[in-house]
């Protein structure tokens, strides 16, 4: 071997240097039994972690890169994006964030701190898609899947690009058997809301629905686009839907002009930005189509 480091040694050194730099912003979050999970110092004094690894609201401690252990207070959590935000009195540096969208084939590192020392995995971004909604109704700006081994305690750790910048937070809590990344833009948006309000505001109508197949003749007479509608099985008293005149037995055909055939479609139309705004509901009632106008409310805390 020659005395000058070869390209492999150079790459190896670069990877280790990136781990060392970003690792200063990666913390261990002690908030569950078993081994701790990971978190990232997102801005000074603020740590972002995953919701599913924080199993208690009090008595949370954080272990920093220099070995120090500090107490953390939970600023808020958002189960729908599997994110939680902690306030921590620390001077640990905030991670440098990437503003670019991940691309398929990019070489990336996943870091974690499931204990005292930082750990690293290497892989590539295997799939990137557009905005998507989690099964709990959270909106994530981009679908990012990794071709990378997933180890215990890595949830809450950063996805690091080749430039040593944090592109998102990795979690095993949003999909079975695969590692997904919540992009940095989503993390920043959710963190800002949790810091200012303590929770994520979501629009609310106050109805429960279930899908129902429309008979062909009814579909025809209604001029409905889809063969499936949502039958209203409950209307909460004094809820926005109640005040707007929605009745049990109505079949919801469209919200805001878009056909709905799954309760998730309704959730999708009820982002936090819709609170206080009027929204148009098209329903089938007594065999005829009717248009109702409901003012979107804010979902009470702890309600699905």
């Amino acid at each position, binding site marked *: 071997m020659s005395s000058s480091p070869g390209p492999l040694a150079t790459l190896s050194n670069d*990877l*280790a240097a990136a781990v060392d730099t970003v690792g200063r912003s990666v913390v261990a979050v002690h908030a569950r039994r078993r081994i701790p999970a990971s978190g990232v110092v997102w801005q000074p004094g603020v740590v972002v972690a995953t919701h599913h690894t924080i199993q208690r609201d009090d008595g949370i401690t954080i272990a920093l890169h220099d070995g120090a252990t500090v107490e953390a207070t939970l600023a808020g959590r958002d189960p729908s994006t599997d994110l939680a935000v902690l306030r921590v009195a620390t001077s640990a540096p905030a991670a440098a964030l990437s503003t670019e969208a991940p691309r398929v084939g990019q070489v990336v590192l996943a870091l974690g701190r499931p204990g005292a020392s930082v*750990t690293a995995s290497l892989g590539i971004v295997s799939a990137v898609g557009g905005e998507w909604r989690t099964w709990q109704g959270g909106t994530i700006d981009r679908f990012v899947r990794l071709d990378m081994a997933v180890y215990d305690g890595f949830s809450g750790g950063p996805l690091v690009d080749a430039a040593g910048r944090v592109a998102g937070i990795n979690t095993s809590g949003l999909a079975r058997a695969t590692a997904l990344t919540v992009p940095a833009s989503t993390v920043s948006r959710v963190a800002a809301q949790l810091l200012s309000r303590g929770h994520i505001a979501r629009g609310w109508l106050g109805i429960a629905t279930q899908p129902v197949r429309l008979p062909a003749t009814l579909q025809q007479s209604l001029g409905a686009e889809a063969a499936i509608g949502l039958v209203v099985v409950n209307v909460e008293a004094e809820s926005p839907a109640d005040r707007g005149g929605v009745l049990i037995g109505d079949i919801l055909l469209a919200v805001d002009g878009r056909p709905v055939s799954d309760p998730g479609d309704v959730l999708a139309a009820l982002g936090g930005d819709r609170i206080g705004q009027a929204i148009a509901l098209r329903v089938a009632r007594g065999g005829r189509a009717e248009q109702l106008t409901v003012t979107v409310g804010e979902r009470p805390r702890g309600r699905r």
Partner: protein
Amino acid sequence: MAAADTLELVPGLTAALGQISERLRGVTVQVRAGQASTGAGVVWLRHGLVVTNAHVATASKLEVVLPDGRAAPARLVARDPERDLAALELPSADHEPAVRADARGLRPGELLVAVGHPLGVAYATALGLVHRPPTGGRGPAAWLQADIRLAPGNSGGPLADAGGRVVGINAMIVGGLGFAVPTHVVERFLSRINRGGRGARAA
């Protein structure tokens, strides 16, 4: 170096990986204990001392297949199931030994290369990186933990750094991670044999 009509991600990287893999294959042997499946071993000392796992060297009479394909009977010199290490002696001398480095100097994120015989595929190479270097003591922290895809048959084989220096002996897979015995633990094991006068000669 990359020609104009080829697409090479990092010039020379693939060639360097090939060199390191070839160099490791030159110090890696196959270890057979009776009818049991094949493990790997690393030529540690020139006079024919081979290091492997205790769980590979499960018989007193072992057969070693050298990198050039010759088979030779090997004698079990010492075995430590707790550290999962065994030392074997080849009947012939003058074998190219592995270049070694201390795993305690590794940093998380450094690249690693493993050579072994996973699932019976002789002399297969895997690329990964340092997940967590050994920090001493007992338990998981005593091992060199690697983010690398290994399989049965890698046991006893070398795990090397980006310079091709052996930093550990692959021993087991825990939660998907490769666990290797760090070189300094191997050296300690060998020095105990020397003090005990159980056949291993000094390098």
